[in-house]
């Protein structure tokens, strides 16, 4: 008979989990595996609240296995290292993102793209090599193979830096891969939330002209005056959208709900690229004529590899880029989720795990 979450591993752990698709989170006792030779054990300090966490606790995508402990924007401190560990020592500040394992043999793994390994193991809601379920960062500790652990730069604040581990790399990786980094080019950022606001910051750091495309006119002031975007386009204003037709070299589409691609494709110049990183529940409608008549492309990107995440963290440390966050206590997570569902956050909740997660 399968062991209970509390008994399956030798080290006690405590976190908050959702038990069913109501998505309500509550205290949950479970356990973490023995620290193997390549593993590090991490005491969790902060964990970002990603929209994927919300999708997962509600089982929006249909593959959640309850109970589920979400959280894949983890920052903490190393408390134990296995004997084969080379990159870290006890006391190091580290991060864990969206994945905690992969096959290590396939072409993707061999080329530092573990995030595209068909057998990758996600930080939560996946099955690990030992057959047990992975539990994420809304918890006090986590044990991870060092290959998938990030060095967290000392000069990056651990709370405001936590969202970089998913939101950050999810925009950084495609911006690099699809070549959205030529100074002077024009980037559109669709959606101004956890991902979008970081994309604006990266865009400016790459020397791009940045236009925020949003359905909420009230985000204009923030976008221009606080985040440093060069212009703001209200997507529900047909005249303004038409005037901006054919002006952008690239667009990062961070919108997670189902939405129309045609207007965004119209904003692109010839050879323009639209990269979508949101995960809507249903397929989107893709008009082909604009693609053919302008040699445009629509690309996808998941999050980022370990190597890219590390590169991004170091880039952020160098350029002073962090997320704009609202720090919350663990016990307020359910109201945070309700607010997140209404996009009522500027722009990422981060759970102060170490100071508020008490048994």
């Amino acid at each position, binding site marked *: 008979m399968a062991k209970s979450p509390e008994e399956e591993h030798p080290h006690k752990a405590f976190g908050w989990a959702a038990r069913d698709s109501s998505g309500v989170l509550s205290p949950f006792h479970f356990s973490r595996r023995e620290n193997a030779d390549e593993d590090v054990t991490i005491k969790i300090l902060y964990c970002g609240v990603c929209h994927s966490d919300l999708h997962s606790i509600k089982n929006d995508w249909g593959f959640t296995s309850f109970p589920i402990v979400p959280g894949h924007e983890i920052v903490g401190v190393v408390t134990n290292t296995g004997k084969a560990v080379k990159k870290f020592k006890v006391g190091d500040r580290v991060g864990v993102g969206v994945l905690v394992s992969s096959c290590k043999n396939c072409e993707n793994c061999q080329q530092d793209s573990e995030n595209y390994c*068909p057998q990758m193991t996600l930080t939560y809601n996946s099955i690990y090599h030992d057959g047990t379920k992975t539990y994420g960062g809304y918890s006090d500790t986590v044990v991870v193979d060092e290959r998938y652990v990030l060095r967290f730069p000392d000069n990056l604040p651990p709370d405001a830096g936590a969202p970089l581990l998913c939101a950050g790399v999810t925009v950084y990786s495609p911006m690099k891969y699809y070549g959205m980094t030529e100074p002077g080019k024009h980037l559109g950022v669709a959606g101004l939330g956890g991902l979008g606001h970081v994309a604006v910051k990266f865009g400016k750091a790459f020397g791009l002209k940045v236009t925020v495309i949003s359905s909420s006119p009230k985000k204009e002031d923030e976008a221009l005056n606080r985040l440093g975007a060069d212009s703001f386009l209200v997507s529900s204003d047909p005249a303004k959208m038409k005037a901006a037709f054919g002006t952008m070299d690239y667009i990062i589409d961070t919108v997670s709900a189902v939405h129309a691609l*045609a207007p965004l494709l119209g904003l692109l110049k010839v050879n323009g690229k639209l990269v*979508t990183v949101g995960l809507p529940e249903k*397929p989107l*409608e*893709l008009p082909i004529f604009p693609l*053919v008549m302008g040699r445009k*492309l629509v*690309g*996808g990107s998941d999050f980022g590899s370990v190597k890219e995440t590390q590169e991004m963290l170091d880039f952020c440390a160098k350029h002073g880029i962090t997320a704009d966050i609202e720090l919350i206590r663990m016990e307020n997570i359910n109201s945070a989720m309700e607010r997140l569902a209404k996009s009522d956050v500027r722009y990422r909740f981060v759970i102060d795990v170490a100071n508020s997660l008490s048994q």
Partner: protein
Amino acid sequence: MAKSPEQEHPKKAFGWAARDTSGVLSPFKFSRRATGEEDVTFKVLYCGVCHSDLHMTTNDWGMSIYPLVPGHEMVGEVTEVGSKVKKVKVGDKVGVGCVVGACHSCENCTNDLEVYCPDMILTYSTIYHDGTITYGGYSDTMVANERYIIRFPENVSLDASAPLLCAGITVYSPLKYFGFAEVGKHIGVVGLGGLGHLAVKFAKAFGAKVTVISTSISKKEEALEHLGADSFLLSRDQEQVQAAKSTMDGIIDTVSASHPILPLIELLKTNGKLVLLGAPEKPLELPVFPLLMGRKTVAGSATGGLKEIQEMVDFAAKHNITADTELISMEYVNTAMERLAKGDVRYRFVIDIGNTLAATKP
């Protein structure tokens, strides 16, 4: 009052035109402009029959101007050149493809991408700079600005090279632009028709491994034995499709009818690209998860710029690549259109203008 097609220009011309949306073509007298200082006039010898011609004669896209003389895969021999023309001389073998004019000053034009210029002028059924309608290659002569003239090397077979001017460039351009044109890449070609068969030939010439993806088992032998494809995937066979998942670097999709793209996206490896050349009228469903989970791309492409067309023609000459054609007489063209509508051609009709058009003059 507007002049008639016969009178609006100084040089007599004769061709076949569609008069209305029935798409039926018949003899048509019109005229061509005088050879301007940058123009080249040539006697048309052959003209390929493109599926676009079929769409345009029946006004499928709502942009046809009647009477409509189709044809944008025309080749012939130069008879006159303007005083400023440097590219060609009388007697040279030349061709004209899909575009005969553009603004020449926008970003696209300066980057040799005239086909993407917002003011681009198509070879037929479009208004030219002088306000007159353009007429295509189902005719005895053609006058075009030197920039839009493609030079053909002496030793190529002109009739079999005519389809390169649209079908050829439409597959060559994305094979290069999207990085499929490399040794060792595994490329899928969806649809084995005018475009598809040339895509196979070009991709093989680039050193790629080629799989033809088709709904018709009858095309398998052709694909493997005659065109040199490495393998054939029957898209209706679920087992074959399953086995081919995540094996292709790129897919060139030449099918213009609406069809699901999820199975094609699944054939791609990580970072793979699906390039659509046919544009169905309605949007397709884009499954987002598979795109994201493999960092895959869906893109479109339309013919190519003039510089690239010349490059392609030279490449084809060097590698002995021509289209597989069925040469027809001018008066056969309506029957050819009916057969084309059913995909009954291997793989491009080419009208023997030089030898059969004049006989149809009333």
